[in-house]
């Protein structure tokens, strides 16, 4: 699979899109296209493993086969993996003296172009009037997160997060009396499984969890989502969290929820947990659920704003 993706990327050099990718706009448009149409390598590997794990001739295996066919077809046709192209979330790491306002303009331009080309669906709706902007721009859209770093290069990561999986994302405030979840890792574990149970069938599983323990409500959710930027095969550097990450996946896959909630062996593909400090009075646990159509990619921009490197 790794080879295949590479071949495609090289192949795209011939396309007019890639040839002219010497401006921020072109590089960003290319990033959107790749993100919308190709599942990153680290995620593909785990999905294919999950397919093998399902028993043959079950509904679960049938669903995983369709998922595999879908990944291949989307890549071949360079069309969106899923029709819900999600919230457009950009994460940018940049050196000092970087012009954020100019960059934001190019991001917006690239989004409008990507919508016209069908890499993104018209997905931005006014919460007051219900009107669809038609170009994926509006209050809160896109969501751009700038972060200054010490390196000289600009890294741009993009995540397209669909509504179905966002709707089953959750936030708990510990202690939770109904779940008997206290303010410790045991309590955290309990609410994570509550979220998994409730998400079944709805978030297009098998999915991946990003979890944040602590923080204020807003930061906690944002940080949970950022965990989804980690490679699927990495581990938390904190041994307690690394253990919990692994155990959550193992246990979830014993619940029999399976792909799409059809019943089966794979309920979760991964779980990434981190923590933030909290106030003495609060203890939030935020869970960001990502569907199997895990669309995230990233690029490093070169001196001329060309794509120098792909990050996933």
């Amino acid at each position, binding site marked *: 699979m790794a080879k295949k993706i590479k071949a495609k990327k090289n192949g795209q050099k011939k396309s007019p899109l890639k040839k002219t990718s010497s401006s921020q706009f072109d590089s960003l448009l290319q990033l959107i296209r790749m993100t919308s149409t190709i599942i990153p390598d680290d995620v593909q590997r785990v999905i294919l493993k999950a397919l093998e794990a399902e028993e043959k001739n079950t509904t679960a295996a049938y669903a995983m086969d369709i998922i595999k066919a879908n990944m291949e077809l989307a890549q071949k046709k360079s069309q969106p993996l*899923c*029709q*819900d192209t999600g919230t457009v979330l950009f994460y940018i790491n940049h050196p000092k003296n970087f012009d954020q306002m100019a960059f934001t303009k190019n991001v917006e331009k690239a989004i409008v172009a990507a919508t016209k080309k069908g890499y993104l669906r018209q997905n931005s709706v006014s919460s007051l009037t219900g009107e669809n902007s038609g170009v994926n721009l509006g209050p809160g859209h896109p969501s751009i997160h700038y972060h200054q770093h010490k390196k000289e290069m600009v890294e741009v990561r993009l995540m397209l997060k669909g509504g179905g999986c966002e709707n089953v994302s959750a936030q708990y405030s510990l202690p939770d009396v109904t779940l008997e979840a206290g303010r410790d890792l045991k309590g955290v574990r309990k609410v994570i499984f509550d979220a998994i*149970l409730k998400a079944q*069938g*709805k978030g297009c599983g098998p999915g991946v969890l990003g979890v944040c323990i602590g923080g204020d409500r807003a930061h906690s959710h944002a940080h949970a989502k950022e965990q989804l930027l980690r490679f699927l095969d990495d581990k938390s550097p904190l041994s307690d969290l690394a253990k919990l990450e692994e155990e959550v996946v193992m246990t979830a896959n014993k*619940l029999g929820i399976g792909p799409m909630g059809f019943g089966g062996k794979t309920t979760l593909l991964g779980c990434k947990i981190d923590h933030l400090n909290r106030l003495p009075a609060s203890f939030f646990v935020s869970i960001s659920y990502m569907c*199997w159509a895990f669309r995230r990619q990233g690029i490093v921009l070169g001196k001329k704003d060309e794509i120098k490197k792909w990050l996933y």
Partner: protein
Amino acid sequence: MKRINYPFTQEAIRELKVGDNVLITGKLFTGRDAVHKYLHEGNKSPVNLKNQIIYHCGPVTLKDKLGKWRVTAAGPTTSIREEPYQWEVIRDHGIVGVIGKGGMGKKTLDACKEYGCVYFHAVGGAAQVLAEKIKSVDGLFLENLGLPEAIWELTVEDFPVVVTMDSHGRSLHDEVFKVSEEALKKLL
């Protein structure tokens, strides 16, 4: 693998059982949140839905140079949001099938039994595989609701789905939920 072909009939629908893999050939109408709300508010449907199948889907659509629509991505959206309305649409409009993802609740299950309708689960996120099964776009209604929310009339061939709620009162979703809840109790 079972098949159902257009025109769809109550009899064919009643024969389907939870767990059946089905290939649908014929006509589908998309309809999601805005359409269901619209019908629920008592507005007249712009198409006759009697014996038709509704697909919970907001497709990605492109118009070509000749003004012809093409669907380029068309997976199911989460159905439970239509739970307050679906039973009514089944009762008042006589639909015999609902395609979506994630399953629906008791009201819909009861309506499926009473009026003869099934819930087909399409594989969520499989927008390309499913779009390939769309052979033509035959109509666009309620365009003012926004393109993903409008009613698209589509002809499909061998559209792959799984029956997860049948017209006999069975729901795979309820069954899997119970099993997983029990399993979790032991593992917590």
